[in-house]
């Protein structure tokens, strides 16, 4: 399978992301944001974490106008699988491929730590290898990760099984590090081919680094 990892000015997780998918046996190409086309035969596009365009104006506000994003948006609209991690999640929101918006963390601090997550729904590619109620331990690192959506939008997310992960403590009780509505950490679109999450599964693939809970998540996108 061919994974295209998009690199914007200010992206800083592309090498980790490439490493993670290579470790899972996949071919990975880094694609510069100025390209207008995705590599032929791309099966999965990953928008990695970082600080594209220095987070100027709003996180990911400017990245959505990069030349490659037109190709990414049509890829997604044609049913192609897209994963946005952290800044990549913010891009998917700004590009309206996912509903809602990201705000500053409620405590106004940049948060960088391991965080437990609870699997809410596994009727999708991304979390198909996990069970509902599973507790994962995956790093988060963001300053603007407070997910917001209006009540109507939130109801729709639940009705369509689009809420995939929430923040919790090690026992699975709600623990909300950033003030996200309903402690939401990961969502998908209606068609369940676009996935966005603030936590970094690519940083949780080896026991020596504290957790390999990210493996089962990323494996779900491989077929």
């Amino acid at each position, binding site marked *: 399978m061919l994974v295209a990892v998009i690199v914007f000015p200010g992206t800083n997780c592309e090498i980790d992301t490439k490493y993670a998918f290579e470790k899972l046996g996949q071919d990975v190409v880094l694609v510069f944001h100025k390209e207008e086309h995705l590599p032929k035969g791309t099966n999965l596009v990953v928008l990695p974490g970082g600080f594209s365009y220095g987070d100027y*104006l709003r996180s990911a506000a*400017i990245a959505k106008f990069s030349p490659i994003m037109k190709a990414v948006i049509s890829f997604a609209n044609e049913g192609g699988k897209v994963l946005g991690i952290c800044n990549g999640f913010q891009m998917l929101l700004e590009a309206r491929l996912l509903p809602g918006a990201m705000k500053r963390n409620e405590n106004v601090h940049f948060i960088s730590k391991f965080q437990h997550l609870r699997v809410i729904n596994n009727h999708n590619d991304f979390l198909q290898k996990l069970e509902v109620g599973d507790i994962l331990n995956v790093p988060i690192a963001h300053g603007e990760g407070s997910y917001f959506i209006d009540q109507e939008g939130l109801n729709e997310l639940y009705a369509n099984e689009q809420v995939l992960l929430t923040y919790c403590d090690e026992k699975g009780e709600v623990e909300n590090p950033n003030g996200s509505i309903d402690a939401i950490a990961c969502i998908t679109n209606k068609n369940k081919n676009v996935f966005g999450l603030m936590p970094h599964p690519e940083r949780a693939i080896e026991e020596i680094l504290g957790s390999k809970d990210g493996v089962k998540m990323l494996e779900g996108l491989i077929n």
Partner: protein
Amino acid sequence: MRVIVNIQLKEGVLDPQGKAVHHALSSLKFNEVQEVRIGKQIILDINETDKKVALERVQVMCEELLANTVIENYTIDFPAC
């Protein structure tokens, strides 16, 4: 022509920066402050003499880039020269 765009979080969307500043003002004994909301101001100098055209163009700029209308409102002002 100078155009000033003010961007604010919508009413009902919690403003954590405003809350933190409010807290700091309270600890400085400015107890009369009821609420603080923080926004941003973008000052544009644009090549246009027709105010109506300018307004329309800046509205598009706000919708497409300057504001995220999911959570933010914007106002467009023309300061007296």
